[in-house]
């Protein structure tokens, strides 16, 4: 792909994510999706920039806020939406739901809703690639809040001493649920912590999908060349509450999120920023851009229809997949 077509693909995936998330919100409001729902709206830049730096056979781990991530990795939308709606055709058969999407067919090998718990797993997938002599890499998303979990430390150290091909991507959206990052985190930049593992650490503008792409591409190259892991901190923002049903923009524990702060970030919307680049720098025609936008709406609508038309799981399904066979 040339850089033009990569940028177009980025734009397409970012739009898909935004529309997918909006649809999910609506369905949750109508009671068609049950359980918690953590929107990634606002974070599409870092999600897509990072995932597009991977090959299809590379691994990717998400967390509780990762609807967008399998989409960025190339997953079909229908089974994802069906999963949110608890259908048998869901990508996880309706068993995982919103916080546990995975589409192994595109290297999306899991999302875990226990904060920080995906980091050792991602390191382990990288270890397997290394042991199997494959040049695959593993990309692990985690939040600013997760950077205070012990698993962060253990995974970083393990990856460093074993030179594992893993990229730890911190989605620093400044808050962990109702808690501002700086109220509970002893450093300004989480990337600084890379020093404690003799690992490269870098801050990147998470709203600039192209910058994220470049930064992750370099880390992936390092990893594939056997030079070991990297820590990348993408500064980003979630537009929505921590999760649905938790009050406007979350009930932030130490004073709320200010209107100025929200406005500041919305002015740097990752989709808008890329659109500007497409139009002004890459000379893409407005109608080509609109075509992508329209197609995204349609694709999400189709995904919704797929989910709606799909059957629910049956009683027996509750008992399979605990083990491989029944025991």
């Amino acid at each position: 792909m040339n850089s033009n077509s990569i940028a177009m693909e980025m734009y397409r995936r970012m739009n898909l994510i935004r529309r997918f998330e909006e649809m999910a919100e609506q369905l949750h409001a109508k009671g068609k999706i049950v359980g918690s729902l953590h929107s990634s709206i606002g974070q599409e830049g870092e999600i897509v920039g990072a995932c597009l730096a991977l090959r299809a056979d590379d691994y990717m781990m998400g967390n509780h806020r990762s609807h967008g991530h399998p989409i960025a990795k190339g997953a079909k939308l229908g089974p994802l939406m069906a999963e949110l709606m608890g259908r048998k055709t869901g990508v996880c058969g309706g068993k995982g739901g919103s916080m546990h999407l995975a589409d192994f067919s595109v290297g999306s090998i899991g999302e875990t809703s226990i904060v920080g718990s995906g980091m050792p797993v991602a390191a382990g997938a990288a270890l397997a690639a290394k042991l199997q002599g494959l040049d695959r890499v593993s990309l692990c998303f985690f939040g600013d809040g997760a950077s205070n979990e012990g698993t962060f430390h253990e995974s970083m150290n393990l990856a460093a001493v074993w030179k594992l091909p893993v990229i730890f991507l911190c989605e620093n959206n400044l808050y962990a649920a109702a808690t501002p990052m700086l109220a509970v985190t002893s450093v300004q930049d989480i990337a600084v912590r890379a020093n404690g593992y003799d690992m490269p650490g870098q801050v990147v503008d998470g709203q600039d999908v192209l910058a994220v792409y470049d930064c992750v591409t370099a880390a992936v190259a390092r990893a594939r060349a056997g030079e070991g892991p990297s820590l990348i901190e993408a500064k980003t923002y979630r537009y929505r509450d921590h999760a649905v049903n938790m009050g406007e923009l979350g009930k932030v524990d130490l004073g709320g999120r200010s209107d100025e702060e929200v406005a500041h970030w919305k002015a740097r919307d990752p989709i808008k920023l890329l659109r500007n680049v497409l139009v002004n720098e890459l000379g893409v025609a407005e109608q080509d851009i609109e075509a992508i936008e329209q197609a995204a709406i349609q694709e999400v609508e189709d995904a919704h229809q797929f989910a709606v038309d799909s059957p629910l799981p049956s009683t027996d399904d509750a008992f399979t997949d605990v083990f491989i066979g029944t025991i």
Partner: protein
Amino acid sequence: MAKITYIQAILAAIREEMRRDPTTFVMGEDLSIWGTADGLPEEFGRERVRNTPISEAGFIGAAAGAAVAGSRPIVDVTISSFVYPAMDQVVSIIAKSRYLYGGQAKLPLVLRLGLYYGLGVAAQHSDRPYPMFMGVPGLKIITPSNPYDMKGLLKSAIRDDDPVMCFEDTNLWSQRGEVPDDDYVIPLGKANICREGTDVTIVAISGMVRHAIDAADALAKDGVSAEVIDPRSLVPFDRETLLDSIKKTGRLVVVDVAHRSCSVASEISAIVAEEAFWDLRAPIIRVTTPDTHIPHSPAIEHMLYPDKTKIMAAVRQTLS
């Protein structure tokens, strides 16, 4: 006396005990979210109401250390599934310190853990892990099943000089009940006979108690007299009330929303099969969640849990 919710009962217990004892303090993640800390920062200040990083082992271990050094932490673990990252601090430190140090250490701390099942949040958020802690000596465990018990048991737990785990059934959050405004405590280790009966004993834990009562009410219409017992605390466990009831009824159904294997239901069954065998007139039936994980899809989640119908069927089985 007012009708307040289960959540409000938690808050009332904490507030009253924080007023009573200046060595108490609260900590946990995102305390503002759940409604169990409303007004506390304003009344007691941010030093005594501490918002933690997402570091369960760190702050639960810190609670142990603070308790050893003379404070009385009340820790909001929020969802009980989040205790696993701190498991070592709970099992190796909190449960064992007093013993290891030959009684020199005192660990007056409370861990509050929500049982967050039935909400479509899938296997990683829906745990009911109290049985695994019942197998660890040194931890007291309470499982309040209504607002009145919640306030009285939690106040006892906060005053207790041993570590207490309080498992809170979040399905009861909005349940209302009469709760005295003034100070009262319910001692740990005293079961509640929710309903007297003579034909069968139903022991039910936490959120299962209301289903057991519903089942007993329905059975009464068919002429079956069921006694419903809520142990209220699992450690210490009120063996006497249980065995007395079996002596009377000769039949036992145990209702526990934990997974079946090595559940509290299994333990209670084993106690009775050992100590009251000659009183038994029928098999002991456990009504539990089967040994599968909790799926997201609401279409298949709810059927997994014990409910009134399953309890009634179990009772009938003991009578047949």
